[in-house]
């Protein structure tokens, strides 16, 4: 069980086996550098949004595995691409995003409880901006808004709980709940005024069914539910959602390993 946890579980405190590679359609490329250190990156995004994260294992706490993760992202090139005229312009084209660096540090702890692998995590997010960040530069979409808002608010905190259970030899169930908070950012105020930045929290929940054909390939399906406070009020959205069809479609993810 412990050996298996080292595979596929990028969200847990388990570090991937040394020299093993894992990648998915939407999951990052993950590689074990040593027995207690791994790195991960989204390789396709890297050209427009350089990103990397490192996870380092620490001493066990009783039967619980512990680790810390540091993520670094430079979103400026991607955001400036999205700040354009016409279709695909998600940010006002008159706005130029300054150089920005996002840092996220988390502490992770994983343990087995009654046949369920439980992972708890908590951490701090920092949004550093090396220039003037226009207050009108937000993207008011679920998932995106609160992650970008860290740069306006300068910092945030996050916490979460993941549960993974083997249903059969090849089938796994994964459920998680994550909270993002932006302390200092106000809840939407109701006094009818200009408020480009309000909405101090979001909650994300995911349920996945995972079928592992082998230690080298697996298929994942499920849903993600996002609920948060935004400048326009509270919004809940089931993802993935296809706008023109006005339908939810299940997540389809394929992952490979070597």
């Amino acid at each position, binding site marked *: 069980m412990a050996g298996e946890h080292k595979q596929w579980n990028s969200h847990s405190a388990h570090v991937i086996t040394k020299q093993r590679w894992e990648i998915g359609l939407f999951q990052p490329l993950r590689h074990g550098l040593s027995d207690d250190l791994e790195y991960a990156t989204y390789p396709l995004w890297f050209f427009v949004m350089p990103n990397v994260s490192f996870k380092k294992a620490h001493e066990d706490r009783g039967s619980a595995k512990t680790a810390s993760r540091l993520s670094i992202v430079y979103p400026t090139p991607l955001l400036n691409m999205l700040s354009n005229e016409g279709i695909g312009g998600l940010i006002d084209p008159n706005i130029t995003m300054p150089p920005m660096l996002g840092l996220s540090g988390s502490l992770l702890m994983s343990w087995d409880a009654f046949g369920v692998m439980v992972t708890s995590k908590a951490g701090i997010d920092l949004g550093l901006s090396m220039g003037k960040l226009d207050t009108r530069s937000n993207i008011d979409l679920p998932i995106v808004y609160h992650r970008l808002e860290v740069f306006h608010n300068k910092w945030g905190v996050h916490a979460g709980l993941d549960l993974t259970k083997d249903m059969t030899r090849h089938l796994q169930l994964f459920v998680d709940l994550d909270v993002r908070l932006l302390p200092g950012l106000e809840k939407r105020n109701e006094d*009818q005024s*200009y*408020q480009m930045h309000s909405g101090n929290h979001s909650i994300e929940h995911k349920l996945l069914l995972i079928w592992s054909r082998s230690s080298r390939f697996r298929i994942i399906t499920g849903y993600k539910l996002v609920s948060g406070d935004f400048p326009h009020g509270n919004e809940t959205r089931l993802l993935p*959602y296809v*706008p023109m069809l006005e339908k939810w479609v299940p997540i389809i993810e394929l992952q490979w390993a070597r």
Partner: protein
Amino acid sequence: MKHYVAILVFLFLQGCEPFVSEFPDSSEPLTFKASNVETGSSVYQGGSIKVLTWNMRFGIGRFPFFGDSCGEDVIADEQTVTQTMEAIVDTLNVIDADIVLLQEVDLESKRSGYWNQIQYLLDNTNLNHGVYASTWKADFIPTDGIGRINTGNAILSKYPLESAERIQLRLRTDQSSLVQYFYLRRNILKAEIPELTMDQKLFFAVNIHATAFATDDTKQQHVNKYLEVLGNIHSSGNVFISGGDLNAVPPDAVTDYCMNDMCSGENYHVEGLEPYHKEGSYFENFLGEPDILSPLYDSYQPAIHEDFRNNPEHFTHAPTTSMIDGNTHRRHDRKIDYLFTNLNWEENSGFTHQGCWEVSDHMPVSATLSPTITN
């Protein structure tokens, strides 16, 4: 476990709200009420009834918005919106109309700072009740940074509004499916004002914002529907005040403003060059368009008499970046905003408030109803 499932089902339903709102032919608009209503202020005390129509351009004043002028800006800054909304409030309080028909009112749209403009106006003016019908409502418009949008027509009144109805107008047919999906859905907003019932004749307020940029016959369809709605009220023996931004010039008016509205780098009226005319600036897109408003003038009472409807002092619109020369804004060069009734306006009460040119690219039009009925 049961509770978990129930909560999940609830959240699932919440999470599947349409991304872009499409509307049935008839639906119920949103209702609003001022946070503090003075005792007695919602009761009609008799006397004249003042009516105003105004396309308030979502509180951005003369901000060079990319969508309706030669501007390039999209998201208005806080100072612009705050000052303009305050100016709109001041204007409404000075004019002190009993019934206000508004077009281009934003409700928690990113472009105007997520302001609930309807509630703000109700809370800061003498108006107590409001209804609102979206013309454009989407979680996110992935174009030019617009983001979340909810904008539309509103009727604000000192007196309670009931039986409000949002009447969907035909969509443009000169657009691709993708553009049409994310585009405006124009409507007529109608509401009854029971306090103003006269000799058992029900009193209605009807607000319209017709298509601006269609190059097909959509505008004719919108005016036809408008005439149908007004005709139904009139033929039922009831009374109405109505108006809005019809995006149509009066009969006998100039119909070509392409050169006035032309932006730097654009060319119009050049053979072989498409488009020949600028969208929204030419009013002969189909046979009969110059006279499209004649049935309204023939059947009902205009606030601005037809003898004066084409006079410059009653012009209500010019794009915000329209210039006469390098230094002088063209403030208004056409009339496209109107008030009509099947009652009678008090003589000479019709007025076009051209002093408001800094507060919007449209001028408000007001008039006062005589409280006696003459059909």
